[in-house]
């Protein structure tokens, strides 16, 4: 079997789209500061505004509702911190002098850690659990979303297991009690159709490097009319909502990445869904004692998360890496902490199965030959790790 180099970690990050690379290379000539009034500045500003238009129209928003930020983490931090802000300007987020946040146990660490920090600062935070397929428990949610809640924040698609939440319904529940709604859609935008007006969300986070754009640039949709309190202060950029000279190169890259997504997203999802079925069936057929994590239907087309009993995930990952296959794992050993994936534990699986989990995330350049290669290599790797295992 010929060794191949197969990248199946697209939920971690993606390669630049060739069109993005081209646009960014060209944009390197436009060095002007978009805030400058002269021709250099105006040229840069017009490129930035074009990108803003692209992002806005892709998610059904107005250009002025898009705020560029340095990362998805920054955008999420911005929302949560503004909710807990005690300045007079941000009062609408407080109910009877108290800030209350409802979120879930499977959010990205940037939401979880921010929420925990706010909790230490006196904010009420409730973390809602999920079922065994990673769907947010709607009964727990309806108990938690009561008058007095400031904001509900629920991620649209999970980075580890790919499960997609019913954001429209949850947003409705939030609005019914007068709460705002935020969704971290970093893994969803560009993979499933999203319309902010249809979903009726107040804030939405998206990131460029998950959709073949550059790293270090993201966008926050902030619905017109909703109060805004900047996280990074000291400049009039982004209509005063995010200070700091614009990352023009990144913004232009994001704009083109989004434009490409509009063309490629739907046929790609169809293809990846087929690949996922082939991968899932093949693994089930060739490898005993596996468990597939996440929702079988309501999940990202390109994300497959599987646990191998008795096989530690980091060892599996590195043996696969030796064969040229790049995946990720929910094992503690890969994360630098003692705990395995908080997402998998929240779905109720045992720590052993969480340590033995592997995430395969496909993307626009994934080919069926690569899937077949994985199916050729993986059974031997799992067998090798299990033969060393104390528990298999």
């Amino acid at each position, binding site marked *: 079997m010929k060794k191949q*180099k197969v990248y199946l970690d697209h939920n971690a990050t993606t390669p630049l789209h060739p069109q993005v690379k081209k646009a960014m290379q060209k944009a390197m000539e436009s060095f002007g500061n978009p805030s400058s009034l002269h021709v250099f500045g105006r040229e840069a500003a017009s490129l930035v505004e074009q990108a803003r238009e692209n992002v806005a129209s892709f998610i059904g928003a107005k250009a002025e509702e898009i705020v560029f930020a340095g990362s998805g983490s920054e955008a999420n931090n911005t929302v949560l911190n503004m909710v807990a802000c005690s300045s007079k300007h941000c009062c609408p987020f407080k109910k009877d002098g108290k800030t209350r946040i409802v979120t879930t146990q499977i959010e990205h660490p940037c939401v979880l850690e921010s929420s925990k920090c706010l909790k230490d600062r006196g904010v009420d935070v409730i973390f809602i659990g999920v079922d065994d397929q990673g769907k947010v428990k709607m009964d727990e949610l309806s108990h938690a979303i009561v008058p007095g809640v400031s904001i509900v924040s629920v991620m649209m698609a999970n980075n580890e297991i790919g499960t997609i939440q019913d954001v429209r319904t949850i947003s409705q529940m939030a609005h019914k009690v007068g709460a705002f709604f935020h969704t971290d859609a970093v893994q969803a935008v560009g993979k499933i159709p999203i319309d902010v007006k249809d979903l009726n969300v107040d804030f939405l986070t998206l990131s460029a490097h998950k959709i073949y754009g550059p790293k270090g640039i993201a966008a926050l949709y902030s619905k017109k009319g909703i109060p805004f309190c900047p996280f990074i202060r000291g400049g009039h950029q982004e209509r005063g909502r995010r200070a700091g000279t614009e990352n023009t190169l990144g913004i232009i890259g994001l704009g083109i990445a989004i434009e490409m997504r509009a063309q490629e997203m739907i046929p790609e999802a169809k293809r990846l869904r087929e690949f996922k079925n082939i991968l899932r069936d093949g693994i089930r057929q060739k490898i005993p004692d596996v468990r597939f994590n996440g929702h079988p239907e309501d999940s990202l087309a390109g994300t497959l998360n599987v646990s191998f009993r*008795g096989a*530690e995930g*980091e*060892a599996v990952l*590195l043996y696969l*890496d*030796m064969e*040229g296959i790049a995946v990720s794992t929910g*094992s*503690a*050993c*890969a994360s*630098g902490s*003692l705990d*395995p994936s908080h997402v998998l534990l929240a779905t109720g699986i045992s*720590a*052993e199965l969480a*340590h033995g989990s592997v995430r395969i995330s496909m993307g626009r350049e994934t080919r069926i030959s690569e899937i077949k290669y994985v199916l050729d290599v993986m059974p031997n790797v799992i067998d090798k790790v299990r*033969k*060393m*295992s*104390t*528990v298999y």
Partner: protein
Amino acid sequence: MEQNWVYTEKVKDHFMKPRNVLKDGEDFKADGEGSVGNIKCGDQMNMYIQVDKDKQVIVDCRWRTYGCASAIASTSVLSEMIKGMPLSQAAKLSPKDIMQQLGSLPEHKIHCSVLGDKALRAAINNYYERNGMQENVRTEEVKIVCQCMNVTDQEIEHAVLEGARSYYELQERTKLGTVCGQCKDEAERLLSEYIQKHF
């Protein structure tokens, strides 16, 4: 890709071709066996030793692990080190001795490699117990350092292996000294002792 591997060539070699793993259905008659670790924490280690009873020397060994690349590689190296080694010497092996043989590991992976020598000590103790030599059994003494938060010296050692380098980081990880603070001096002494021992 290969040139940027986080592990040294030796670690990689032992990871790819682990030595002395107990094979399926292998009839290895162990004179002592030990098991340490916990699947919940993501690592578990079994060690099996054969002993020349006249010379009190380890002649052969086998092992199995549920663990990551560092655990696999470090135990593989350990299994080569101990063949022909007197029990008394083997019982004193520390993670640092294994690390010296292995070259090095990324700092955050060192805690993954401490199970090998623990499992070996458990196997040696098991051998002594089976052969009526209880007086040789060395138990790991655990001492409570912080009375308020019930934190032991073992937990301090663990926190150091996990990356704690200052008293503040130690407090963050173990919560020791966060009530009365009387244990600060001893905790700081142990902190530097364990950093010295492992790094």
